[in-house]
């Protein structure tokens, strides 16, 4: 965990509680900050979600040096992963004769990401 900007401690004391998912950063700013300033917290080695559904909301609270809460946000802050792709994909017809009925198609794919047991495949077939 690091910060960005000259007003912030570049390597403040921090901890992460995996059970509560709380990242606590102590003494984050070196100087008095006026309102509407930006705080940048950079967290490395995070694994992105395994699907594109937005995460639950990030929540933050800011405390003064005596640990009195000043402000916070509790909802609406989400992160959304971008869809991956396929390392390989193909469609093959057992019989390629024009207008042949009851032809068997074989779909093959090698997804880049984990395919969970409850996942769904949706294939759009051109007419």
């Amino acid at each position, binding site marked *: 965990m690091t910060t960005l900007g000259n007003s912030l401690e570049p390597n403040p004391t921090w901890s992460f509680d995996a059970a509560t998912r709380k*990242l606590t950063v102590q003494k984050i700013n070196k*100087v008095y900050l006026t309102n509407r300033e930006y705080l940048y917290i950079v967290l490395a080695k995070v694994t992105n979600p395994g699907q594109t559904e937005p995460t639950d909301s990030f929540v933050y609270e800011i405390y*003064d040096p005596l640990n009195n809460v000043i402000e916070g946000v509790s909802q609406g802050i989400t992160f959304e992963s971008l869809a991956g792709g396929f390392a390989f994909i193909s469609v093959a017809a057992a019989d390629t004769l024009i207008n042949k009925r009851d032809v068997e198609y074989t779909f093959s794919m090698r997804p880049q990401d984990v395919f969970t047991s409850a996942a769904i495949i949706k294939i759009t077939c051109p007419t």
Partner: protein
Amino acid sequence: MATSTSPGSVACDAITNIPVTTGTQLDCVFAHGTTQDKLTVSFAGYLSSNIASDTLFSFKIKGVRGPPSTNAMTGFNFRTTSQTGDLIDQSVSGSVALYAVFPAQGTAANMIVTSDDPSINAPSTLTMRIQTINPLQPESNIIVTIPS
């Protein structure tokens, strides 16, 4: 500290038991200091009569900024002086406090989360940009709950 948004004259009105000659307006001036600010209410020329001793009177001022944290504010000191500045009455230090200050609630727009690689399952570095609502004293703390 409770202080005016900017130093100088602030809107100030008598509420109870202040015999203002005309209307309700009083002469109130905020002076900003480094550790404390001073509000001076001058009655000269404003009152039609004295305020008798042991009279509960009140007035209100506008344009005051709220305290910077939810900590109880106990640093108020009240003094009355003569027109030449000689002390008449003064409060006991720490006897006046202001409580029940609520933390500011921001919106989702106050925080943006970005990733150097937002791909599904990718190991990435998250950057959380938080725009504060209030001024922050040095060595403030922050807790961020990161969704799983």
